[in-house]
């Protein structure tokens, strides 16, 4: 194991025995943590502190991915998602996307910086062949280049926007995903409408925008961040939490939550998907955000 040194200590804590738990209802969503925390960017708010050097979570082998897809198909999965890190750093990303699309609608979450003309062509060819929808979610944190690049790194804005346009030109209708980290830079202005307007001004006639909250984890996690108690969840329907119907295959096993994947405390099993079908501990400060905002990492 590469080790926890680059992460705040809180991410490595074990779930306390009295942590509230989320029921497991069904496997609707399979997530593949394909590149672990290996990324070509190093965003200040990254939920799992991904970056180019010494990723603390390793990529997953193609064999593990294919086995998970086959098992998920048998279990009646509805959607498959690939995330990382940056998925397009994985040498077999296109082939694995094709395997997933044989089974279910599939989404890939990307920073867009590696989607050049050839990759956009490859994705368009995959989408044309598939019976199920291929969705590409490109992260962008602001419509202003400087504000975006302060969060995501120099040059990331122009590359991501170029990818969005390339995908759109090929009929792929990318979903632009933004966190609320830069909301303060545009006080009083609707973030959603601002992104829609930005995309339409670039000739994107069917703009798709997803807004995500910022989580207190990864590089933003701090010791002492609040955690859930049973009292916090009185009257709350835990079946609404995405961990009640999602499972994540990543290095080291199967996890309940896409953004906690890789953390030892969030691991449900080192075995199969089916062996992970059990209540999940709501032990992490990130769980507070899910409960309070009702957010989901899914497309809709």
């Amino acid at each position, binding site marked *: 194991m590469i080790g926890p040194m680059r992460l705040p200590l809180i991410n490595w804590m074990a779930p306390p025995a009295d942590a509230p738990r989320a029921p497991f209802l069904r496997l609707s969503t399979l997530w593949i943590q394909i590149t672990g925390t290996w990324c070509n960017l190093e965003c200040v708010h990254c939920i799992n502190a991904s970056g180019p050097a010494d990723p603390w979570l390793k990529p997953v082998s193609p064999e593990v991915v294919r086995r998970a897809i086959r098992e998920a198909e048998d279990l*009646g999965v509805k959607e498959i998602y690939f995330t990382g890190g940056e998925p397009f750093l994985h040498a077999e990303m296109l082939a694995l996307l094709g395997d997933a699309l044989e089974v*279910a*609608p599939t989404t890939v979450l990307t920073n867009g910086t590696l989607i050049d003309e050839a990759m956009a062509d490859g994705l368009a060819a995959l*989408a044309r062949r598939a019976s199920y929808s291929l969705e590409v979610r490109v992260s962008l944190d602001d419509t202003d280049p400087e504000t975006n690049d302060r969060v995501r790194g120099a040059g990331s804005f122009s590359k991501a926007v170029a990818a969005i346009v390339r995908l759109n030109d090929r009929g792929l209708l990318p979903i632009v995903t933004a966190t609320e980290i830069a909301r303060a830079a545009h006080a009083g202005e609707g973030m959603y409408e601002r992104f829609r307007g930005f995309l339409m001004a670039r000739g994107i006639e*069917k703009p798709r925008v997803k807004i995500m909250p910022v989580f207190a984890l990864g590089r933003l996690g701090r010791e002492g961040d609040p955690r859930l108690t049973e009292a916090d969840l009185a009257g709350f329907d835990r079946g609404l939490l995405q961990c009640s119907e999602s499972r994540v295959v990543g290095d080291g096993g199967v996890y309940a939550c896409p953004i906690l994947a890789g953390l030892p405390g969030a691991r449900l099993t080192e075995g199969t998907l089916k062996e992970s079908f059990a209540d999940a501990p709501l032990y992490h400060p990130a769980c507070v955000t899910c409960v309070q905002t009702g957010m989901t990492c899914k497309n809709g």
Partner: protein
Amino acid sequence: MRADGDDVQERIAEYRRIAVFGGVYSNAPALEAMLADARGRDVEAVFCLGDMGGFGPHPDRVFPLLREAGVLAIQGNYDESLALGKTDCGCGYTDPRDNHFARISYEYTFAKTSMENKRWLGGLPAHRRLRLGTRRVLMSHGSPRVINEFLWESATPTGLLKRFLREGAADVLLCTHTGIKWHRALPDGTHAVNVGVIGRPENDGSSNVWYTVLTAGPDLSVEFIPVHYDYETLARQMEQEGLPPEFAETVRTGWWTTCLENLPSQERSRGKF
């Protein structure tokens, strides 16, 4: 179990040919046209998979039509919300623009639906089962497991449909909720059919709406039937009632202008917006 150990079979009605529709969305002119069309097609019964209100004007106008025609209905998410007095339609949107229009539509429909009709909606079953020849049919609004689950053609895996059919002990699954029809014959001889909706055109640039006729036989016959109706009158009524101009535009043009963000990329790419 009976004393002799045999299972007691529930009496399930058996049909040869049925008409099935979904999503009325307060479109009384389309409902009237559809019922008249179905009467000419030798069907033994007409079924509605729910969502009587929303989107259109004068919600109370559809209920007498449904009752007089003896339509056998199940409950949609809109019906459930109206009956329970919920504050939103439970359509399952997550996008701010979609939710904005959904809120306008629901508040209008809630205010204009009588208590008697809300009670009627509250008494509808969540599912229906019947036999079509030898085939066991399961009807649901969204999916058999969740009333507002979207089953789009390009986003519903065959593996999931197999699971629904196996767990529901059915050979044919009928659903609606998305607003766009489709039919998939599975390799094992079972079927899944989204019967479409009659309240709103299906985002293909045509003003007509769709319902479905199913006929028993060695091969199940699934026919999607276009319904042409007086959409201009409906659009004018929507405007007179102060409903969003985007709704009337959809009725006139056949292109969806709202509730677009739940569409998977394949379905979204076929539309105009």
